């Protein structure tokens, strides 16, 4: 797939001076796409494109977060999110450390507040956290001074995933505004679906969600999306097809009869591709269950941008860390000036 020529620095600067543009985030935490304004989303995405340039040069190192400490606290398994945050920190020059739930004191029964307070007291500026309970980062953010970045909370939100998805869409489609996006799969358990619906619609896209009836959360139609139970109906005439991971680890009981039946009725197949726009791109947040959400040939299709999503994940996370740090600096400066 061909990418759209990215905006030049000058063009971006012009856009940044638009009336509704913002130059700073309003909160020192990133909890979800629900909490972000459209202008803040554009600020993060614009910054991410700048960060991507840093990644394309040979000396991938800056000093934007020099002297700052970031801890990534993952109480759930992760490969790409955790590593991309870690790499993002390193490219920005921050001091980083990682802790997972299996090696942490959670195993000894320590409660969440004590755990994160312990992490914060090691002079941590930014805490990136993933947690199996919806709302856990919100709970933490109210109780510590460090910035909290939600790297996925239960079934609620995964904002940096939605941001990297949007960045990828901009790369291939030029803009989010006016895009038709089909999101298919396990909508009930998916924080990726929720964050994308909030974010994409704020940026002006039209979102359709197609899930098996047993994986469609009640009253999903009240979220800003069109609910289709038929994957093919959802894919008609869309610019983006996004498959969601079937979250076997989050399912409490079998919500479909077999993987075979799921793939047959709800998987993304060549028919879906034919129904979509000829230049439609294929996305997936990973990790993909090959042959369930989509067969391998679609995963590796020349219209698939799944690998590019991973690359953009690092850039988006650099942007988020950079902007949260800027917000923290501004707060500290303000406090000092008013002292």
């Amino acid at each position, binding site marked *: 797939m061909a990418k759209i020529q990215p905006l030049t620095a000058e063009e971006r600067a012009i856009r940044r001076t638009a009336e509704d543009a913002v130059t700073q985030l309003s909160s020192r935490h990133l909890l979800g796409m*629900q909490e972000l304004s459209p202008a803040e989303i554009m600020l993060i995405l614009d910054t991410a494109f700048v960060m991507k340039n840093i990644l394309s040069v040979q000396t991938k190192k800056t000093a934007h977060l020099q002297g700052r400490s970031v801890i990534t606290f993952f109480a759930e398994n992760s490969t790409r999110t955790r590593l991309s945050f870690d790499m993002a920190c390193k490219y920005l020059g921050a001091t980083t450390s990682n802790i997972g739930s299996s090696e942490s004191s959670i195993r000894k029964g320590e*409660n*969440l*507040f004590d755990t994160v307070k312990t992490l914060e007291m090691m002079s941590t500026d930014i805490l990136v956290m993933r*947690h199996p*309970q*919806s*709302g*856990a980062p*919100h*709970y933490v953010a109210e109780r510590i001074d460090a910035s909290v970045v939600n790297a996925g*909370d*239960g*079934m*609620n*939100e995964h904002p940096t995933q939605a941001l990297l998805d949007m960045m990828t869409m901009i790369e291939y489609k030029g803009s989010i505004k006016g895009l038709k996006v089909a999101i298919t799969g396990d909508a009930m358990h998916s*924080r990726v679906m*929720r964050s994308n619906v909030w974010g994409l619609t704020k940026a002006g896209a039209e979102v359709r969600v197609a899930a098996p009836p047993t994986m469609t*959360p*009640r*009253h*999903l139609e*009240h*979220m800003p999306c069109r609910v289709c139970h038929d994957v093919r109906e959802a894919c008609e005439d869309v610019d983006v097809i996004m498959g969601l991971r079937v979250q076997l680890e989050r399912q*409490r009981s079998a919500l479909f009869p077999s993987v075979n039946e799921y793939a047959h009725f709800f998987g993304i197949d060549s028919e879906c591709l034919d129904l979509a726009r000829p230049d439609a791109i294929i996305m997936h947040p990973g990790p993909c269950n090959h042959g369930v959400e989509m067969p391998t040939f679609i995963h590796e299709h020349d219209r698939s941008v799944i690998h590019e999503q991973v690359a953009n994940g690092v850039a988006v996370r650099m942007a988020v860390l950079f902007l949260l740090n800027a917000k923290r600096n501004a707060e500290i400066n303000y406090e000092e000036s008013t002292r």
Partner: protein
Amino acid sequence: MKNSYPQFKSIQIKNVRHWQTGDLTELLIAEGKFVPELGCQAELVLDGQGLTVLPGLIDAHVHLRDPGFEYREDIISGTRAAAHGGFTAIAPMPNTNPVADTVPVIRYMIDKAAVAGFCRVLPIGAATKKQEGQELSEIGLMTEAGAVAFSDDGLPIASASMMRKAMEYAAFFDRVIISHCEDPELAKDGVCNEGIVSTEMGLKGIPSIAEDIMIDRETRLAEYLGCPVHIAHVSTANGVECVRAAKARGVKVTAETCPHYFTLTEEAIRGFNTLAKVNPPLRTESDRLAIIEGLQDGTLDIIATDHAPHHADEKDCEFSLANNGLIGLETCFPLVYTRLVEPGHLSLADAVSKLTSNPAHLLKQPKPGLEAGLVADLVLVDLEETVIYDAASSLSKARNTPFQGFELRGFPQLTIMAGNITWDSGRLAAK
């Protein structure tokens, strides 16, 4: 700790407004009863100007956590909170440790409350041993010991056949089964109402049908058996309709709701507010309105608090891990008055009946009232003064309330149980 208010053989309360007639009246109390005249000067004369007198309130559904969970609440703190809220009798559910499924636990609760002297405790015994839903508990013996009703409350009896046995057996001893209606499979792992809010917040929901289906089951069983049944804390519109239809068929069913179900909706949990996490969960606006309708047409007979104290740590955590429930004894009447009576949904008389004579009937207690000869249980409430509710004022050990900062009227100023003062705000001037 015991009730240490000074007590008087005879009390005269002047200038109070009668809850039914609205007329200014005078109450005379001697030897724990209302009397037509004293024949001498009362030991204590109070001027109740500006206050309204109601019979002592009766709460058909509380949790006192004693024995077993005294770090949350005990019988003394719970009965003090009850007196503070204008109650003179409260019925605790059996989910203590050990479970209130034998005579000694029932006696312990009644006696501890009697010694403390703040509020009568009318224990609800477990319907099945250890609330496990497998074998009937000693319903007859517990009845003799003072249990007023039977329920497995928060651990609903899943088996219809077991529920049938419990209803039939309890009816033989003139006791009613109180059912917390929730299909355990449908409700499994749910932490809030299933609907728009659970979908948007990514929380596992409890569908309203989990409640509706069980209300239907209980009313069908009661109809078939000719036994009475009481439906605890109705929260759904279809649940109200189901009870209404059963009553129209002549089923011996009574039902209660709680102040939070006519005051709040699922919107209260936004921001992962664990203080509004309760089971049954707060539902939708249309459910809330149907609850009010059910109260208006008499489908819902009783307003109970489901007072559920928890330690701060049990609410200060991730939403899904937080305990269900809220304290309600001290905000009950003010919420009933401010949210039901003032807007005209219920008359004061109807509202008070749902807090006095209706629960008294359910729990086999003497008819409450202010007439001479009746036991002197009363509460004086201030219907005029607006109070911004502060949970710090609570006499419960717990502070888990979603009503912090609510502007309410109707707070109790003086509670008297059997002629003894059990709560006194100090507002009434002695003459």
